[in-house]
């Protein structure tokens, strides 16, 4: 698995766009809306290599924080100029509201690409990049508010271990969110999807990234991955409550959510 990602790291984003025709951006946006984080949230994004989820998180939290500050200022209509000046000085004007995201990935190359992207796009505060294995996270217990793993869990060898680690590092009340390719039940769509996956994607892989094999592996790993209900059962086994999933695009992708209660 490590080798696959070393070779695809640089072209990862381009391939994502071409394979999914750009829809992956929408999927990740939907994930963020479902999370609906408020300022002060600590997010752990596992297998988040190139930072897509992390950047969206920062944008979301920033806009929520803006609205919060606007509302606060409206309430303070009667302040003197001195008091307004002081409130700007204080941490209240902290634009992320103490939210932070830690991006963890097993692959150094992916993290490198992510850091470069962050610099390029101008994301500086609230981001950390950590090298780590989803089956054995280098973090203490009860640390994070939200744990996300977007298109990463199918690359984990022991999914149950990853789920247990997710449970461990989450705070009580914390949320587990998993965005992953899943099972399409509609038979017609399923045939079209198979056709697209096996005929078009490896070709795109060869043309764009110069790597047929990795994308062949990708498509096969999607087929091997447990379907929605099975994954839901595995999440429940790890100890999560209120486990639910939402199908996007008829099951091509599914978001699973669970809480540590």
């Amino acid at each position: 698995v490590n080798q696959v990602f070393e070779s695809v790291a640089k072209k990862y984003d381009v391939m994502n766009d071409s394979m999914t025709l750009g829809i992956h951006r929408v999927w990740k946006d939907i994930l963020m809306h479902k999370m609906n984080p408020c300022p002060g949230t600590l997010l752990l994004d596992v297998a988040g290599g190139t930072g897509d989820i992390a950047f969206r998180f920062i944008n979301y939290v920033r806009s929520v924080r803006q609205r919060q500050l606007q509302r606060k200022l409206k309430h303070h209509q009667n302040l003197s100029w001195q008091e307004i000046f002081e409130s700007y000085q204080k941490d209240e004007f902290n634009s992320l509201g103490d939210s932070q995201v830690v991006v963890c990935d097993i692959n150094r190359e992916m993290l490198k690409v992510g850091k470069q992207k962050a610099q390029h796009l101008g994301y500086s505060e609230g981001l950390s990049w950590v090298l780590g294995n989803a089956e054995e996270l280098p973090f203490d217990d009860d640390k994070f508010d939200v744990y996300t793993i977007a298109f990463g869990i199918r690359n984990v060898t022991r999914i149950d271990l990853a789920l247990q680690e997710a449970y461990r590092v989450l705070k009580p009340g914390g949320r587990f969110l998993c965005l992953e390719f899943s099972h399409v039940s509609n038979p017609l769509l399923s045939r079209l999807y198979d056709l697209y996956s096996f005929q078009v994607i490896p070709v795109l892989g060869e043309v764009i990234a110069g790597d047929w094999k990795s994308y062949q592996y990708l498509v096969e790993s999607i087929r091997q991955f447990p379907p929605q209900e099975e994954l839901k059962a595995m999440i429940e086994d790890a100890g999560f409550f209120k486990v639910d999933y939402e199908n996007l695009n008829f099951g091509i992708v599914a978001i699973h959510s669970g809480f540590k209660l």
Partner: protein
Amino acid sequence: CQYYPPRRALQASAMLRRASDEHKKEPLTSSSQQHFDSPPADHQPEEKPQGPRPSYTGQGGQESEDYESEEQLQHRILTAALEFVPEHGWTAEAIAEGAKTLGLSVAAAGMFHSDGSELILHFVSECNSKLSELMEKEQKLVQLGEAEKKPIDEFLRDAVEARLRMLIPYIEKWPQALSILLLPRNIPSSLNLLTSMIDDIWHYAGDQSTDFNWYTRRAVLTGIYNTTELVMMQDSSPGFEDTWRFLENRVADAMTMSNTASQVQSTGEAVVQGLMGAAVTVSNAESSRAVR
């Protein structure tokens, strides 16, 4: 070989509750909270790793009284969140703050819908329970002969006033709540809560009739309640005295109405009045919210 998933209750929340027992505030209603107010000695989640699984898995009815189910935890979070409503409104933010006071992560607010509907419905149902308790107590006093049985108009007035007074701490954000309750998604639940409250009031008022009058009385009282609530939203008089006077007049009208022969017509009028008032006020509330 078979893998039996470990059965345990909400470990994390149970341990948190023990740890924060000293900091726990008095819950708004005591009836549903009686299970957890038991002393810490009853909770031993570490020593008994096997516990009943909460009901969501469909093994319904296996919760023992020592362990908390998801619904009960959600109930506690919503109750804690009410404190933050005056500041944040009926939103997911208020729920997140509520979860924080219970020692849970702010992400727990994700369990609820992002527009805050559950919080409002929870509040309404809590208020209705409180009202029922009040009326129950009053009835007991009457039965014991310690109090006089009130005439119907006075009883209705007092009941509606008592119920509306529960809105006072949240009155600024209540228009927002009303508009959310009117969303198509929430109408079944909110209507349900409203009609059961009205039924409750009539029950304690001494109404035992099952003829067509029952519908009339229900509709009339619903009309009185809704219009008074809307008047209250826009009332700026000290102590809401304008509202209570309005209420008095409406109840008096209803009493005289019931003595005339044109009952069915009046019911229609009452309902239409109620709806018109509701529509006007909500649209005012919406436009003022949009301007803000």
